[in-house]
């Protein structure tokens, strides 16, 4: 068993608190948002205390220092995923990163010839999967609605894997982009993105990965992914809210039309027309989320110091243990793969005859904080014919005792509602 040291928990002040009548907090909702280590909190605080200024504007000393810190953060984040800083676009979160690409694709209709590759219209197809978070589904539905393109999707097998039987017909010469999750936020499934990317590129389609649940939990090197775009959120990886990243291949970012326009992203402005900066600035209009970017940079450094291999292995151990502990409870059904193979640390389940809201309420009463509902991936619930699930998600600060508390809590819920 390879677990990270317990002392690590001390880096996270919030995890020391109690909830609901003095219960020790057991936080199992990092898939929704993670807690923050002191190093991230300190980095944000230091920015505001010492060099708060608008980056990339002004020539005074504070502006210089703010710009340097902001760009250093970009470099840290780039290093963290094996990218070059010029390919890192700061966004509000993964949702905005995905919308950026979807809107750039509809904006391509009226952009110059260099944007040809991004144009979408009637007869074209966009491919997603049934296991997408709404953030990687609704923007594509909307793109299709705006442009007349057709949305198609991969289904899910009974054991929670992506059904690739129709890969060659689903992804065809009409496909403009394949947008899929790099790790499902409900099922935990890690789809074979390389095989899908290979097919997509063979027919000239772009590939976007929703990496909101992968970059925080496993080593990711964009050089090995065969993807064209990768979107993730800072707050799910120990960083602040309000900051996310869209990584894109440099040659694509250079020809992609902007989404949000305004200050900072311009080169020259006349009353009649404007020219734009090269990427990444072209996609970063307005004074950016500077403190948040710096906080995310600190989060990446913190995770890199621990080592993402170790983080991944730690979560794998917890996931395996939770599949075992939950799986042995009569009436519990795991929604998603039953083993840790190609699977991350999101464990969703149903408890026979108890609605997830009620399971969650009992757990909450015991200090165990999980997510209940459809987890912004409603089609997964429909696919499995269930109204909702209870979901536990793990991170580097969780331990085996947390999993025990979860399993004990589920049994407690069964006792309370008289179903076991």
């Amino acid at each position, binding site marked *: 068993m390879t677990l990270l040291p317990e002392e690590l928990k001390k880096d996270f002040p919030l995890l020391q608190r109690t909830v609901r009548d003095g219960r020790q907090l057991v936080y199992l909702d990092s898939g929704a948002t993670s807690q923050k280590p002191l190093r991230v909190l300190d980095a944000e605080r230091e920015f505001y205390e010492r060099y708060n200024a608008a980056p990339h504007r002004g020539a005074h000393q504070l502006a210089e220092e703010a710009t340097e810190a902001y760009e250093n953060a970009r470099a840290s984040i780039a290093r963290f995923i094996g990218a070059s800083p010029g390919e890192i676009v700061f966004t509000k979160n993964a949702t905005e990163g995905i919308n950026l690409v979807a809107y750039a694709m509809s904006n391509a209709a009226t952009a110059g010839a260099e944007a040809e590759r991004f144009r979408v219209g009637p007869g074209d197809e966009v491919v997603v999967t049934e296991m997408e978070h709404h953030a990687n589904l609704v923007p594509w539905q909307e793109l299709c609605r705006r442009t007349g393109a057709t949305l198609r999707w991969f289904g899910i097998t009974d054991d929670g894997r992506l059904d690739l039987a129709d890969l060659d017909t689903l992804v065809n010469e009409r496909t403009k982009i394949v947008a899929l999750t790099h790790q499902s936020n409900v099922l935990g499934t890690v789809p074979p993105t390389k095989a899908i990317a290979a097919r997509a590129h063979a027919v000239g389609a772009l590939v976007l990965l929703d990496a909101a649940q992968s970059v925080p939990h496993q080593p990711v090197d964009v050089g090995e992914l065969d993807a064209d775009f990768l979107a993730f959120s800072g707050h799910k990886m120990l960083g602040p809210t309000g900051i996310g990243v869209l990584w894109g291949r440099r040659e694509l970012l250079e020809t992609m039309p902007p989404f949000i326009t305004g200050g900072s992203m311009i080169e020259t402005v006349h009353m009649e027309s404007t020219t734009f900066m090269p990427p990444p600035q072209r996609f970063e209009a307005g004074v950016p989320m500077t403190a948040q970017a710096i906080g995310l940079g600190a989060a990446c450094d913190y995770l890199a110091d621990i080592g993402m291999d170790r983080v991944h292995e730690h979560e794998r151990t917890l996931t395996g243990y939770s599949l075992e502990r939950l799986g042995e409870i009569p009436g519990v059904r795991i929604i998603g793969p039953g083993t840790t193979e190609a699977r991350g640390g999101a464990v969703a389940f149903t408890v026979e005859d108890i*609605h*997830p*809201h009620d399971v969650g*309420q009992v757990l909450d*009463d015991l200090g165990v904080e999980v997510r209940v509902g*459809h987890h912004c991936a409603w089609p997964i619930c429909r696919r499995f014919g269930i*109204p*909702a699930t209870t979901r536990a998600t793990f991170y580097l600060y969780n331990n085996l005792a947390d999993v025990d508390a979860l399993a004990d809590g589920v049994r407690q819920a069964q006792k*309370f*509602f008289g179903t076991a």
Partner: protein
Amino acid sequence: MQLEAMYQEVILDHYRNPHHKGLREPYEGEAHHVNPTCGDEVTLRVHLDGSGQDATVADVSYDAMGCSISQASASVMADLIIGKPVKEAMAVGEEFLALMQSRGQDIAPDEDVLEDAIAFAGVSKYPARIKCALLAWMAWKDATARALGEAS
């Protein structure tokens, strides 16, 4: 344990054995309400006797999917309002809404008006669950407005 304060016996009884459940004819108004945060759903029909200001709630039938709180609330509500004049039933709804918005503060809810629905007082302490308790009431209000619109 705070659980008993929230899951009163009355609530669990209604949850296990819901009253008036199932969709029935005839009806003049129907509404479908969803709680988008958790996916709970209710389809509710209202059958009125008479029209306009003098109408009486002759039947409330529903099909619902959701947690114990939302299921029990639909059952308790149907018990409370069937047979009441619409105006009076609306007033009960207002009283229940006030109870739910009390955030667990002592607002001395009127037990004569709310009857079994008073058991939901504990739910008001949990903001995430208030919507569960109100789902059927909101659907009823909506369906009744439709029924009155058609009848007048």
